[in-house]
Structure formats: structure tokens, C-alpha cells
């Protein structure tokens, strides 16, 4: 990773380019590299086993990072890296980090494809605005699940009855209250040291700056620093990254390109992912990295294009680097529906056998608070049981479940029900009917040979 002052210097002195010019440079280079490396998307096999494809994706991504660099929106300058610097970015990445505190801490490690070790589970309705009225109870539903190792929950929709608003004081207050709720839930669950990936209520750096305190977001916690689409950053992202690094916490790169944008189709997006992760670590000094492909029509990470991307990118990064990766499990259907479980099975299998830890379940494409700890427990069970599978076996099961929801249930998803209708808010236990839906889904998964609960 580059020294932050060096990043600053290059963001002011790097080559000048109009944004459109940079967009088309990314487009042309990506297209060339996809062709040069013969990268082809295979809709029929969402978990590819072709090692030359995986190698091609990594090599093309490395070249893309080298050739384009990363664009800084405000200065219109490109931060370029040399080949040696990029190689150092790869070589210096830690293969494990200790996150969280005390007996709640975990060794978060870089998984490999078909890794037999237990994947670690990041739970929460990440990305969704959650009402203040039940934020604490909902967060507690994840903390109470023993299989959940870390929590990444959504932001607060309102604080003190006031809507969070970008760059307003409410944004800072929402970030503070979000973490206060999470801390309180962690204590209530008897897991005061659980690792949090938080600060979701704040888009700008205001909220991030407000929560860099030991009583809020600790040095053993993390926050997200996204790469803007495609291969861009801005002063707010850099401020977040630099200040949190100095504070001593963990930066996490979120890469969430839209298929069909300047990177092109799934093939180009795969290449763009690799480039983004390398550049993200170079300029943000990120410690772990989140893969989140966005489908232009369905949004969720569960259509075939996104599943293939989650797999091929996980495999490429896991095989050729020590980057610690998390794959988002982001469904169109919501908790309270049976369909959400089908999406979870396919998405989680893909993530876990390809070299990533699962993060989710973010249901309803992050629009509604229709989620709970129960379906995240299910995600954890699927992920852990998948350690007995090879990629080919997982691919076959994922395909079977894909058929159950794609495309109809993504076209018209069942968004399910909000948290208070899924859980008893006093006992923080799933309601009987919701538990039954879960048990039915569990039975269906076991019919495919996944031995849930025997780990």
C-alpha cells in the first residue's frame, strides 16, 4: 500500500483527465484485456473450475489496475501505480487479522477455493435503512446467533425522529446512535467484544469521523470504504480511509460495480473487480475486501451473472493473493418468504467454496427492514456445511436452487415482512410461523446432501 501522503500527492499531481475520458479508457482497456485473456462468462456453471479462466481474470485485473490507475473525482487526476508497487500491494496483504475483542475476537483469515476450514460469518441487514424503533432488537437477533461471528447491520433511517441527510449534522448523529445501538445489542447478547463493520448511516466522511472513538467504533472494528464505479474514488472516501487508518481501525474495501457499465459484461466486471481490490488496498490500505456485483435489472447478487462473478473473483483473488475476502449475500426476496432461502443457498454455496466468507443476509435488495437473525443463521449453516463440497458439487446444488427463483422470483420478488412481524420483540425469538418456514427450507437443503447441523 502507498503512504497516504503519496496518495494525496498523486491525487493532485497525477495525469489530468476528464471523467468521460477516463470512463472510456476503462471501457477500452477492459475490453482489450477480456479478449486477450479469453475470459468468457458461462451461465450454465456459476462456479467455474477452469483454472486458466481464474488465472486470466487475475492477470487481466492486475494489468487493468496498472494501465488505468484510479480516478479522483474532485481533482480529475489519476493516481497511477507502478508494477512494483502493485506487486507489493499483493505481497504485503495480511493473510489473517485478529478482529473484535477478548473472547469475542476472531482470526479472520484469507480463505482458499474448497477451503475445509470453517468460514466466518458476518451477519446483518447491511445496506438497508433500519427504523430507530426496532434497530436494537433487530441487531440483537443477529448477535444472539452463535454462528454469527461479526455484525454488519444497516444504517439508521432516522435519528431522534429526524431523517439522516448527507452532510447534515443528522448524518453524524445517525452514525453515533447506530453504533450505540450496536454496542448495546452486543452487551445484551453477552458478546461485548464482537467485531463490528459499522458506520452505515453515514455516506460522507462526517459520520465516520464522529464514531472514531473507543466507546463507539473501536480499533478492533471496521468500516467500509467503497471504490466508486468504475475505478474511481473521491475526497470523502480518502478522508474516511486515512483518518480511520490513523485511528487504528480496519478499512474494508467495498467493490460493487454494476454489470453493463463501463467495465462491460460479467467478463469485464470480473477484471474490474480484481483491479479495484488491488487499487483499494493500494490507496485505502484496506485489510479485508467485499465482493458485491450488482445486476442492472435485478440488483441482487443472486442472478447467474452475479453468482459467476462472486465465484470467479473469489477464486482469482484467493488463488493469487492473500486478500481476505467476503462475498455479499444480497437477495431480492425478503425474510418471511420461502424464496429468500433459495437465493441464500445458491449465493452462499458460491461464496464459501470459492474462497470468500459470507456476509448477509441483506434481503429485499437493501430496501426494507424485512430481515432477521434466522435467515442469517441459515446462511451460516449452509456456508459451514459447504466445506465438505468441492466446486463441482456445489455448482450442481447452486444450479438446482437457482432454478427455484430465477428469473420469476427476481422479476417479482416476495419482499416478506418487517422484523417486528418475524420476531417477538421481547424475547428476540423468531415467531412460530417464521421458524416453520426456516425448518422447511432446511429440510429441502438437506435433501441435496448438505448436512446441516452436523458440524
Amino acid at each position, binding site marked *: 500500500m502507498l503512504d497516504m501522503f503519496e496518495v494525496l500527492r498523486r491525487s493532485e499531481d497525477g495525469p489530468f483527465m476528464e471523467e468521460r475520458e477516463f470512463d472510456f479508457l476503462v471501457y477500452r482497456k477492459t475490453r482489450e484485456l477480456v479478449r486477450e485473456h479469453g475470459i468468457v462468462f458461462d451461465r450454465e456453471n456459476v462456479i467455474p473450475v477452469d483454472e486458466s479462466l481464474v488465472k486470466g481474470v487475475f492477470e487481466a485485473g492486475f494489468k487493468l489496475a496498472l494501465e488505468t490507475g484510479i480516478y479522483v473525482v474532485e481533482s480529475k487526476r489519476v493516481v497511477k501505480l507502478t508494477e512494483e508497487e502493485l506487486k507489493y500491494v499483493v505481497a504485503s496483504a495480511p493473510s489473517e487479522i485478529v478482529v473484535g475483542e477478548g473472547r469475542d475476537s476472531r482470526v479472520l483469515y484469507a480463505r482458499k477455493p474448497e477451503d475445509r476450514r470453517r468460514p466466518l460469518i458476518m451477519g446483518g441487514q447491511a445496506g438497508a435503512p433500519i427504523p430507530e424503533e426496532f434497530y436494537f432488537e433487530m441487531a440483537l437477533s443477529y448477535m444472539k446467533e452463535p454462528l454469527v461471528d461479526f455484525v454488519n447491520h444497516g444504517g439508521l433511517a432516522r435519528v431522534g425522529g429526524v431523517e439522516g441527510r448527507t452532510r447534515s449534522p443528522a448524518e453524524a448523529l445517525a452514525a453515533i446512535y447506530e453504533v450505540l445501538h450496536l454496542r448495546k445489542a452486543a452487551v445484551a447478547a453477552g458478546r461485548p467484544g464482537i467485531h463490528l463493520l459499522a458506520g452505515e448511516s453515514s*455516506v460522507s466522511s462526517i459520520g465516520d469521523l464522529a464514531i472514531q472513538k473507543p466507546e463507539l467504533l473501536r480499533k478492533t472494528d471496521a468500516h467500509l470504504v467503497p471504490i466508486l464505479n468504475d475505478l474511481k474514488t473521491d475526497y470523502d472516501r480518502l478522508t474516511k480511509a486515512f483518518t480511520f487508518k490513523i485511528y487504528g481501525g480496519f478499512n474494508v474495501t467495498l467493490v460493487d460495480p*454494476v454489470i*453493463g457499465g463501463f467495465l462491460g459484461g460479467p467478463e469485464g466486471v470480473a477484471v474490474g473487480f480484481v483491479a479495484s481490490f488491488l487499487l483499494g488496498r493500494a490507496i485505502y490500505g484496506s485489510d479485508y475486501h467485499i465482493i458485491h456485483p450488482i445486476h*442492472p435489472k*435485478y440488483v441482487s447478487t443472486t442472478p447467474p451473472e452475479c453468482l459467476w462473478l462472486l465465484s470467479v473473483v473469489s477464486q482469482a483473488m484467493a488463488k493469487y493473493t492473500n486478500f481476505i475476502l467476503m462475498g455479499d449475500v444480497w437477495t431480492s426476496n425478503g425474510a418471511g418468504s420461502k424464496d429468500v432461502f433459495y437465493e441464500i443457498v445458491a449465493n452462499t454455496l458460491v461464496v464459501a467454496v470459492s474462497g470468500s466468507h459470507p456476509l448477509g443476509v441483506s434481503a429485499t435488495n*437493501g430496501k426494507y427492514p424485512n430481515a432477521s437473525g434466522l435467515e442469517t443463521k441459515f446462511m451460516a449453516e449452509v456456508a459451514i456445511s459447504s466445506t465438505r463440497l468441492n466446486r463441482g458439487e456445489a455448482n450442481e446444488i447452486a444450479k438446482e436452487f437457482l432454478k427455484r427463483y430465477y428469473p420469476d422470483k427476481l422479476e417479482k420478488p416476495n419482499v416478506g415482512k418487517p422484523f417486528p412481524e418475524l420476531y417477538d420483540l421481547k424475547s428476540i425469538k423468531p415467531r412460530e410461523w417464521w421458524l416453520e418456514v426456516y425448518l422447511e427450507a432446511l429440510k429441502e437443503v438437506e435433501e441435496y446432501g448438505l448436512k446441516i447441523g452436523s458440524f
Partner: protein
Amino acid sequence: MTQPLDICIELKNSVEQGEPERSKSLAEKALQVLDSISIIKECLIPAMNEVGEKFSRLEIFLPEVMMAAEAFESAIKVVEPKITGEQKKALTMGKVVIATIQGDIHDLGKNIVAMMLKAAGFEVYDLGRDVPPDVILKKAVEVDADIIAVSALMSTSLPYVKDLVRLLVERGLRSKFIVMVGGGAVTREWAREIGADGYGENFEEAVKAAIELINSRKNA
């Protein structure tokens, strides 16, 4: 002599392939054998419709759509002076002012919707990202827009969308414009709640809603 059908096909191809210079010179050639209205109706609009459909099937991507739109506009510039204002109005679906609202820097989804609206025959004024409500309103008034379309990916930018609607009401302009909203943070229910006229869950729905809303206004 060049046949009208051949030149139309060539022009259509040049737009689909995103070649502005070629589209311009082919439009000039086409004018020798076809009238302006036919060029727009038979060659240019079908080309953009095809581009939109190809994007929907993910056979082409945003940059190709942008280049096609550029080629389309370079051809339009050649033929447009030959038609009357009334004819132009009849050929255009309507005018849209589009932006990612203040507080949000995510514009890829909005860019896709803007391009797809162009492909569907709308005249689109794209104001970019992080755009304050008053700037959007000013532009809409300036170009006499039919539709104001705003997107918000982050929930913290939603209050600014409400500000826009409130501003329109305060200025007595609410009924003048069709207001459409979309983006990751926006739900159908919320769109209804703030009094938006249309909502798009994705680019396909956004374009469909825009067409339906403008047609019902024209027929009212």
C-alpha cells in the same frame, strides 16, 4: 443512385455502432433521397430502439449506448433544421431533466436510465450527480421539461428528493412536471408517499413508466 432503403439501413447501422462522424455524413446523404421526418422515424428512432433492446439483453453495455446516442444526436443535428418545431415535438416522446439528487455521488444507474430514455425517444438533459433540488427545478423550467427524474442510491439522500417535491409545490409548479423517482434507496411505497407520479425499480420499469405517464398526459 443511392436507394432510400439502403441509405436508411446504413444510417441505422452507423447509429447502432456508435459512429458519430459517419452518422452525420450519412444523414446528409439521406437528405438527398428522403425527407427529414422519414429519416427520423424510419432510420434514427428504430436504431435507438434497437440499441435499448440490446442493452436490456446485456448484449451491449453503457459505453456503446452512449456512443450510439452521440451518433444519433449528430445525425439529428443534420436533419433537425429541416423540420418545424411542431413536427419535432410530435417526433419526440418528451423532455426529461434527470439527475442524481444532492447528497448522492452514485450515478451509474442514473446514467443507464438516461441513456435508455434517449433510446426510447426522449430528449434528455442529464445534470449529473449530487445535484441540489433548486438546480434541477431551474433547468426543468428553462427547457420546459415534461418530466423531472431523480435517483437516490443512499437513504441519506432521500430527504433531498422530498425537498425537490416540496419546492415544486411551493413554487406552484408541481402540476407542470411529471416527477419520477428511482434508485437503490427508493421504494414504491415511499415514492407514493412523497407524491411522485412515477417509480422505476430498474431501468426497464423507469422507461416504461415514463412512456405511460407522458402518454396519459398527452391524452388527458
